[in-house]
């Protein structure tokens, strides 16, 4: 169901750690105005935030596209980074390939992908070494879960 949807596109600047997270704040604002349940908004914005940070750390930025349906939110993160060599390993909590410099800034604790998986109802990764990664996260909205109930 739910053909009706809204689309938003955010360019994630790969150079800038301080602006990473802006797309997440922006998305949160839109979802609030539509009236999704706080729990849905929280999951979507955490997933988006982790995705943004990942693209900055590993891929030099990228594009985030968000399709908002009545019953689900689909976030697609697209980058032209190095790709993920071992997806299964990358999904493990605490596993990280972030360089020391990044870790010293408090990022790269190996919780990004696991957090995205935990907050999304569905997470799909398509990656090619040397070409880039596309991650699609789906957050489903329970039929009754709106802020107005």
């Amino acid at each position, binding site marked *: 169901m739910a053909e009706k949807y*809204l689309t938003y596109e955010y360019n994630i600047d790969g150079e800038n750690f301080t602006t990473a997270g802006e797309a997440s704040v922006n998305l949160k604002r839109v979802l*609030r105005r*539509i*009236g999704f349940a706080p729990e849905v908004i929280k999951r979507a*914005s955490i997933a988006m935030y982790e995705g943004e940070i990942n693209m900055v750390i590993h891929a030099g930025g990228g594009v985030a596209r968000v399709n908002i349906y009545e019953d689900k939110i689909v976030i697609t993160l697209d980058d032209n980074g190095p790709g993920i060599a071992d997806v299964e390993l990358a999904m493990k909590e605490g596993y990280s390939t972030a360089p020391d410099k990044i870790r010293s800034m408090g990022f790269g604790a190996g919780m990004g992908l696991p957090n995205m998986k935990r907050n999304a109802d569905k997470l799909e990764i398509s990656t090619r070494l040397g070409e880039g990664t596309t991650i699609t996260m789906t957050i489903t909205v329970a039929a009754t879960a709106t802020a107005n109930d």
Partner: protein
Amino acid sequence: MAVYKHSVSLDIEKCKGCTHCLKRCPTEAIRIRDGHATIDPDRCIDCGECIRQCPHNAKKAIYDKLSSLPADKYLIALPAPTLYGQFERLDDLDHLIKGLLDIGFDDVFEVACAAELITEYTRRFLARDDIVRPVISSACPVVARLVSLRFPTLVGNLMPILPPIELAGRLAREKAKAKNPSLKDGDIFTVFISPCPAKVSYVKNNLVGGVSSVDAVVAINDIYFELLSVMEDRITSVPYSRTGMIGVGWATSGGESSALMNDHYLSADGIENVIKVLEDLDTSEHPNLDFVELNACSGGCVGGVLAVENPYVARVRLRNIKRYLPVSQARPPEDAGGAGFPDEYKINLGVIQKPISSLNPDIRQAMDLMADIDEIFKTLPELDCGSCGSPTCRAFAEDVVKGNAKYEECIVVMRQKLKHLLAEDI
């Protein structure tokens, strides 16, 4: 639900319809319509920012006048800790308490004393392992309202205890009745001496869930000169003040949290910073954080819009006053209740307000509206100039879609139209 009573009002005669308040309102509650500002009561959080910004003094705080207090009642002053930092030569708090008695109050109960009790209760509350962390202080009424309106997922983090003002009102009544057994509740009239209009809203709306124990709120800047004149002689023989360093510390940002003797705290002040912190808490995990103190005013309560003295000067004075005080003078009984504090001090902040942020109760319709807003927004200049009467182009697009503004009110759009018309003439 009862209509929310605000404490910020507008003098239409003085309002020039400029955009100072419009641009600075943190919740975008203001619009300029028909040449003057209007405030959306559902969005206003009573932070007082518009009062601070208005160059024409058109925005006013509503509070009770000293002369309007019922003289036949047993009047108890509840001075905010901020009051202590307002006087240049004040080094002994007893002078100030005596001053309050001299201008007509029958008794004084320092809010700082109630604050010290709350500090101790908060320490005990934080020691529990069944609570949602980090605990966010609920003492600033602006923050409590902001959280319940804009950050519903954080309502469970708010400290579920009465704010110092309310506890002070209750304790003042108990103390007065103990001292004068003939007094009844109806004979007592408690008056908070406030640095900010938000405390007025707090009392008027009975946010505690029942009737507030505070009857009236007087502004610090309204009582200041009267106090100053009676404090001149500076002769006191009776020690009145019962507060310690901790209670006085509540007046400035960081005072409430540093008193907890727990390093895992964050304190932020100034409404913009407060919102940034709340956004962050809403999205990220902070496992090392136990307590979050948020003050809507810069510098803490000393930065309140009804205070007289510059907040940074006030902070220095408070530091000098604190030097001669014991750490704390209030000590609640060890076994005060299962929650870490007595049950009768508990409040349920979740039911006070409900979020207002959605465009329409129906998700499908809200999405339609959002699509229309996005469509209009794309055609706007993104100057956020405020000339249309809305604070940003985004807010203007929303106002147009809701039928609260006309698209042609955008002067940039109009100028383009005009150019086209002129070009056609040639």
